[in-house]
């Protein structure tokens, strides 16, 4: 399978209080990052087969100005080999999607835009510390459609204590009204060292309880499936198999991918490495012709198997029984999980059920004696 390419744009207009990704609100460092990125491309360009997905994420790629973004896309597509029909995704923030920005995306080979809408409820948006309003989301999506984007994704978040299920279903309804090809619904994670984690310690904010979150999850799945979406991964829904995120699936199946930019992760031939989480550090390393790598790991067979199990059981496709049958005591574990209604075996694959998705972090443990 062809490898994937990820570009990390480590800039945001402002930091969201729940986000743990590496990004800073300092546009003055864009030139440094850009220079570093061009150097890094030289380091790796001959080491990967042609890419069939390109994913520009961050941070907020659309926090770059349209000219810069255009230059970035042009540079990537001319300096790195791609297959004939790559999936080219850019993550976008609703209020950045001006007519000019949309035109820049359209004109630079982007064929998939993933919009960080998060909610169509102004109350929730302000709780999440987002700097846009519900109407910005709607306008952005309409603008993308008008410009002819036929493959579009919407990101939504839920999970704060006290959040109203009815209001959430209304957000889902609004999202559905745009008939996006892809919807991601993330339960909010309180990542370490984020402002939300601190607020949680101080008791000023809390995640919703287990039974509430379960209800949100199941209602979301039911609602989107009723609308014709495939719940193909724990947090991901697509309006057809052709709209699964081709790029993200590479992460779950040990397909090689190259991540460029500060903090980006890469994987190839059983080795995973990740870049420095500092623009200056990243730049100086790349400038000297050194890989701007912070760490790496070489995965053993055992570790690869564990990851396959963990990521595979988060997807509708599950994992092949051939892999399961290599695990000691697998038969008992499978029948136990089946009896609890957490998995089923279909066409020689072990497939998680909806309730299995809900305890996906626990299921692999059933296979360890």
């Amino acid at each position, binding site marked *: 399978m062809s490898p994937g390419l*990820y570009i990390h744009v480590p800039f945001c207009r402002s930091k969201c209080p729940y986000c743990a990704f590496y990004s800073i609100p300092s546009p003055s460092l864009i030139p440094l990052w850009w220079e570093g990125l061009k150097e890094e491309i030289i380091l790796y360009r001959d080491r990967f087969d042609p890419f069939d997905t390109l994913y520009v994420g961050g941070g907020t790629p659309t926090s770059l100005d349209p000219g810069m973004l255009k230059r970035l896309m042009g540079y990537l597509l001319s300096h790195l080999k791609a297959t004939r029909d790559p999936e080219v995704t850019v993550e976008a923030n609703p209020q950045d999607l001006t007519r000019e920005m949309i035109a820049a995306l359209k004109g630079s080979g982007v064929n998939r835009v993933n919009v960080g809408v998060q909610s169509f409820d102004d109350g929730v948006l302000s709780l999440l510390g987002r700097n846009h309003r519900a109407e910005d989301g709607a306008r952005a999506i309409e603008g993308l459609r008008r410009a002819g984007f036929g493959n579009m994704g919407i990101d939504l978040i839920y999970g704060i204590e006290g959040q109203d299920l009815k209001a959430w279903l209304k957000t889902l309804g609004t999202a559905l009204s745009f008939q996006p090809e892809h919807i991601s619904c*993330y*339960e*909010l*994670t309180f990542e370490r060292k984020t402002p939300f984690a601190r607020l949680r310690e101080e008791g000023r904010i809390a995640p919703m309880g*287990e*039974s509430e*979150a*379960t209800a949100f*999850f199941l209602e979301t799945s039911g609602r989107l499936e009723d609308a014709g979406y495939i719940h193909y991964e*724990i*947090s991901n829904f697509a309006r057809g198999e052709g709209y699964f995120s081709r790029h*993200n699936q590479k*992460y*779950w199946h040990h397909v090689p*991918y190259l*991540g460029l930019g500060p*903090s*980006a*992760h890469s*994987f190839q031939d059983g080795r*995973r490495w*990740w870049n420095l989480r500092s623009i200056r550090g990243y730049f100086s390393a790349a400038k000297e012709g050194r890989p701007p790598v912070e760490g790496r*790991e070489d995965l053993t067979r055992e*570790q690869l198997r*564990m*990851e396959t199990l*963990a*990521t595979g059981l*988060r997807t509708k496709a599950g994992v092949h029984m051939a892999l399961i049958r290599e695990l000691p005591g697998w038969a*008992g574990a499978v029948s*136990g*999980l089946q*009896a*609890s209604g*957490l998995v089923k075996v279909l066409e020689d694959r072990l497939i998680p059920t909806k309730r299995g*998705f*809900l*305890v*996906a*972090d*626990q*299921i*692999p*443990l*059933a296979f*360890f*004696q």
Partner: protein
Amino acid sequence: MNNTMKNIRNFSIIAHIDHGKSTLADRLIQFAGLVGERDFRDQILDNMEIERERGITIKSQAITLPYVSRKGEAFELNLIDTPGHVDFSYEVSRALASCEGVLLLIDAAQGVEAQTLANLYAAMEHDLEIIPVINKIDLPSADIERVREQIEVDLGLDSDQAILCSAKEGIGIDDVLEAIIDQIPPPEVEEGPLKALIFDAHYDPFRGTIISCRLFSGCVRPGDMIRLMYNNAVYRVEETGIFRLRREPKNRLSTGEVGYIISGIKTVRDTRIGDTITLDTDPAPEPLPGFKEVKPVVFASVYPVASDEYRSLSDALDKYRLNDAALVFQKDSSAALGLGFRCGFLGLLHLEIFQERLEREFAQSIIMTAPTVQYRFTLTSGEEVVVDNPVYYPDPATIEKAFEPYIRASILIPERYMGAVMELCLERRGVNSRFNYPTPGRIEIQFDLPLAEVVYDFYDHLKTVTQGYGSFDYDFLDYRESDLVKLDILLNGEKVDALAQIVHRDGARPRALQTCKRLKEEIPRHLFKIAIQGAIGGTIIARSTITPFRKDVTAKCYGGDITRKRKLLEKQKKGKKRMKMVGSVSIPQSAFVAVLKSEVG
């Protein structure tokens, strides 16, 4: 009488725990010049790591101290260190039998405690000269006058003879030494063939068993053929000698002396503490009195956490036994826990030390089941059976009568705790209470208690209800008829044999409820519901439920999340390896231990 004998003193130090026995021993060793201040390591006689840590002596040891008196006369003082816990009272009695006198050590701040009394009685039984020593006089809380009064009134000893010292500060040590030579008589002469009392044996990987003994008559030297009178086994003596800090060979041991014999005995199990050694060529007609075979009173099974570590555990036990003759074990197998060993111990402390040493010194990851005492049953067929493992509990329909062992507990407390202690003892089925008032403000409570109730965290409770002021000692009494039942614990309907317990019928329900509650706290949530039940026969008498995980999932799993996810899984996998699978339920090691503990306070 030969000249040397009159300059030998054989003595022991006896004390309540923490009254400073080991510190005083170390000071005496230092005073004798066997060790310089620079090399002075605390508690030289307590060799084992655990002994040093817990501050208690587990095995008897001996050391010969050279001492020149104030008058300039040279003496050999044999200090025989005794174990300081009631589990080892037989070893103590054999060590005392090897002495002519004791130092009865009393903490100047704590005063007389339960073990002080028990030790005094033991010393009196052996007709020993008793020198009271008041230790820790340097403490701000020391109350020497009060302790003197206790010595007079509680102990019935002459308090004017009490020596004042601080072993920690090195104060009064020479007074102690002078009192030893002045007050303790030299060994008595007894004519006749060799009679040496074995009071300890330990294992040396190069020399085999090193026997510690006291000679009451005759003499022994390398080349002699000795006979152990217990089993008439004969060995050739390779080496004799005395203990300094190391073994010091000596070409003969004579009447009255204390020393060691090495004679190619492979394991300490081939010797018996309390046995008499004589010469094969010129045997003594009678062994020394007082020999008794020690029998375990508390039993528990031990299993490796990982079943493929059975061999390693088996090897560890074989090695362990080299130096612990009191430990008995045999193969055992549990449906729940696989292959393991059933072990017998002298008491709970012995069991705890065993568990700690196995884990620490022998690097074994083990699960121990609840300790049990030995029950006796008369069956309707007239047959008598002894059961020390709940797994072998007889079919209730065939039981005519059941019996359980009783002890007489002696508890010494300040008077204000009397109510709390009474309540505790009655709750533990105590009967036949008696009270002594040794001094104003203090009370000694005696109770007949089922041993099983003491095994079950009695001492922890006593310490709690008396805020640490209660001290406790016990003696075996007898077997008494009792109404016993077998309490089964079921996980998802499956009996877990390793969690079964034999209990008194009246205590069955509370115990069952508590076990269920404890297991609920200790067993982590699973992907399925876990029903925990306590049952007698087919009747469920207690239950609790562990609800399954409803939701445990991370929302995002992209580039950087995968490593994190895998590392967490690896950690969880390791944690799971330390658990025991019973059916499909993973039980942490801690659960087996937790069911033994009831709520304190």
